[in-house]
């Protein structure tokens, strides 16, 4: 009899558990193999560090992160998004690195009423006319980073700038953002193939155009290829090179070394930003993974913080999508880059910094903040977004 009672009690206890605490399930769909893997791995590791700092409970809920590799392929990413919605039944999907993948995945996720929080990709389409109640961006709108360098190059008085970017949505956004603040002559605007290896043909054209500065947006391996070849072509000392943080971040600097020294670039974050949370993040990341965190790692961390903040605000109730959405949208995110608020299109309003590639204390090449280009900067597309 006692035994039966005990069984009954434990059965009741089992029944009671899920009601008391919903497990927070997060789908981490990111690029873990192939040439873009460095970026995805940093996002994943930054995110994991935030979960660890929260004691394994984002927003006080048991947190389960389900990893999947999108191989930087839109079709694979859409398949995984489908799996996360239908089979794993996650509440949130994050991890996306590439803008073209984000655009491809959104219909599936929004259709499945699953929140899609981008830790990196911030395409203009999803900030403007195609903004979506289920899409949030914890990092930046693509253009913002480029706008900052555009303003800097304009302020420095450059008159004839040569522009290069890969031929995909973020590439177009990037050069559009640069030109929004740079008003001088465009000596050339060249779009190259995504994943291009050899830039000899383009560099020869560039040299012939005789610009007084060059602006390039080449994230990941493309950036490494370009920077190496730019220096080898004897252009480094001759024509100043500028770019967004993506072209000169930690993942690239480790591979090109001193070839990038002195280059000015922009980002919403830098490893030397002086606040307690960031100091702890950089130190713990180095200790845990043995490398200096990139901006992608910081964005992964901030994404986890945003989820943490919103889930706390709704008291762990993950069923009510409208409340969770309101909590995400109104979050005053205490991020690694100070307080960040979100605009009506669910994109951040934040500072953008100018950084310079320098040799750090222990000889490692890294970025140093040199100026704040924009304070509380909103993106240019919010006016086209029908969400209010």
């Amino acid at each position, binding site marked *: 009899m006692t035994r039966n009672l005990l069984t009954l009690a434990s059965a009741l206890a089992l029944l009671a558990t899920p009601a008391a605490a919903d497990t927070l399930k997060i789908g981490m769909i990111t690029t873990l*193999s*192939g*040439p873009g*893997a*460095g970026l995805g*791995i940093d996002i994943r590791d930054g995110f994991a560090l935030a979960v660890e700092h929260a004691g394994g409970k984002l927003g006080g809920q048991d947190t389960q992160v389900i990893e999947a590799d999108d191989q930087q392929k839109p079709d694979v990413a859409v398949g995984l998004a489908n799996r996360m919605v239908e089979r794993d039944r996650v509440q949130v999907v994050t991890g996306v690195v590439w803008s073209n993948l984000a655009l491809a995945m959104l219909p599936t996720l929004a259709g499945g009423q699953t929140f899609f929080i981008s830790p990196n990709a911030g395409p203009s389409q999803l900030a403007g006319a195609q903004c979506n109640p289920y899409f949030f961006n914890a990092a930046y709108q693509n253009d913002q980073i480029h706008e900052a360098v555009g303003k800097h190059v304009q302020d420095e008085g450059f008159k004839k700038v040569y522009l290069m970017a890969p*031929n995909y949505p973020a590439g177009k956004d990037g050069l559009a953002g640069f030109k929004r603040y740079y008003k001088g002559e465009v000596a050339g*605007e*060249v*779009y*190259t*193939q995504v*994943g291009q*290896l*050899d830039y*000899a*043909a*383009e560099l*020869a*054209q560039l040299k*012939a155009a005789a610009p007084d500065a060059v602006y390039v947006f080449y994230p*990941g*391996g*493309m950036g*490494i*290829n370009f920077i*190496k*070849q730019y*220096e*080898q*072509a*004897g252009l480094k000392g001759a024509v100043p090179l500028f770019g967004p943080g993506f072209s000169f971040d930690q*993942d*690239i600097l*480790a*591979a*090109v*070394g001193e*070839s990038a020294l002195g280059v000015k670039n922009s980002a919403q974050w830098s490893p030397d930003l002086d606040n307690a949370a960031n100091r702890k993040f950089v130190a713990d990341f180095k200790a845990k993974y043995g*490398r200096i965190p990139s901006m992608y790692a910081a964005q992964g961390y901030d994404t986890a913080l945003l989820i943490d903040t919103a889930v706390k605000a709704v008291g762990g109730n993950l069923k009510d999508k409208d409340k969770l959405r309101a909590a995400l949208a109104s979050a005053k995110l205490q991020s690694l880059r100070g307080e960040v608020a979100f605009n009506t299109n669910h994109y951040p309003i934040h500072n953008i910094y100018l950084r310079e590639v320098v040799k750090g204390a222990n000889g490692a090449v890294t970025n140093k903040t040199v100026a704040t280009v924009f304070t509380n900067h909103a993106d240019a597309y919010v006016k086209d977004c029908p969400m209010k």
Partner: protein
Amino acid sequence: MDALLLVEQGLNGLQLGVMLFLMAAGLTLVFGIMDLINLAHGTFYMVGAYLTAALVPVLDSFPLALAAAVLLTALLGLVVEAVALRTLYRRDHLDQVLATFGLILFFNELVKIVFGPVPIFLNPPAALAGTVDLFGLKYPAFRLAILAVGIAVAVFLWLLIARTRVGMLIRAGATNREMVMALGVDVRRLFGLVFALGCGLAGLAGAMAGPVLAVQVGMGEQILILTFVVIVIGGIGSIRGALAGALLVGMVDTLGRALLPAAFRLVMDAANASAAGAALASMAIYVLMAVVLAIKPKGLFPAH
């Protein structure tokens, strides 16, 4: 566009072609002689680049590191051939594709475990880091070195294949494998040798590409597709075909990227011209392949 720029673009095309030749020579030998589709050829290219990057700081000399890396890659080829591929020769091509694709995944993960996921550092040696003045044209010294190495390898392969006994067997093997076996040649040894040679060449290509390109996991697959295009155009199994195909692809790709946007600018506005030019330039080599195959279905210099 002035003449000097055209010369420079020509050199760029030649250099890309030579780079592709280093890859294609090994792949076409293995394919033509052993009848083995080796998708993992790019893996040896990656291994060559990583070994060079790892050995430069240890040996403190780029040429030494390069030589060691090429040798080690060839040795790795011998081991892989003996352990994984020997059982596949009698199986059909689909099995070989599956198995060598597995090798790609295995080695990519292995390299990630050993060297980490982030691309690693490799720059040209100081002596070749700058530019060389060629009659008023400033050209990157290291790209000239790639050109020189590629030409040297082409001459070496020609001598090897046209003038030595091993070369005779390789030629015979490419033309009629069964007959060579029937004549009592130790095919197993010949295959091992050919595979190691191919891997060494891929390693050399990786070592020479490393200072120009990102040394990262998956770098082999990026160049592998181009390499397949080259050997299909050139004719499978033929070194001469590989050379012709590589130079053709290098030239068409480079000149396409250089000239097409400018050509489109004559008929449309700048923004559309650069977009259309970029799109068409990225297709140019595949169009070339289609045209070549339409005229000569077995490639330019078929071995069989």
